């Protein structure tokens, strides 16, 4: 599963993507658990980040599986 980082989150982590793997589809909670273990600095942003799965905002019931592209979306500021 490809994880994408943007804006100040990418700057803090010093990277724009990660690759993680699961043996079966997981909830957002389980995904976050793995991401926070891998990148503890994400903790400060978690409350403001929305997850997107394959270019669409994920709902609370969505599951995430290998092969998905998951983006961490902090508050937007286009225009």
């Amino acid at each position, binding site marked *: 599963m490809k994880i994408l980082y943007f*804006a*100040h989150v990418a700057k803090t982590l010093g990277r724009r993507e990660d690759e993680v793997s699961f043996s079966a589809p997981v909830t957002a909670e389980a995904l976050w658990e793995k991401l926070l273990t891998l990148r503890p600095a994400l903790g400060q942003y978690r409350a403001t980040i929305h997850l*997107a799965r394959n270019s669409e905002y994920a709902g609370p019931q969505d599951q995430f599986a290998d092969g998905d592209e998951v983006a961490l979306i902090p508050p*937007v500021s*286009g*225009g």
Partner: protein
Amino acid sequence: MWSEILFMEAPLPSPPSPPEAMHGVAGAWAEFHGYVRADEHGQKISALRYDIYEPMARKQLAAHIEELAKTHGLVAVRFWHRSGLVRVGEASVYAAVAAPHRKEAFAALGELMNRLKKDVPIWKAEILPE
């Protein structure tokens, strides 16, 4: 409905004439040009750096445009946004809509810009003067 969504690193060119799709159908073509100011939240800046998750931004914008077309009867929409470094005084965004009448055109254009700032994955970061 005709639409064009473009993201570009180079300065935005002068927009071309309204698209053929509106000819004879729409009576209003409303445009918005957004520029980078030297002052961002009370801080002097030299530029903004835009980061865009392009596939999702395109999808979100297309969905918003589709909805606005239904509610305001839009005939055509052109939307351009800069990515990367945009210096003070340069344009960061250009949006234009065609509708039967000016009331719908102005309303839809304002709503499109509001929606852009709500959930379209585009971010800006301030670059301070050296």
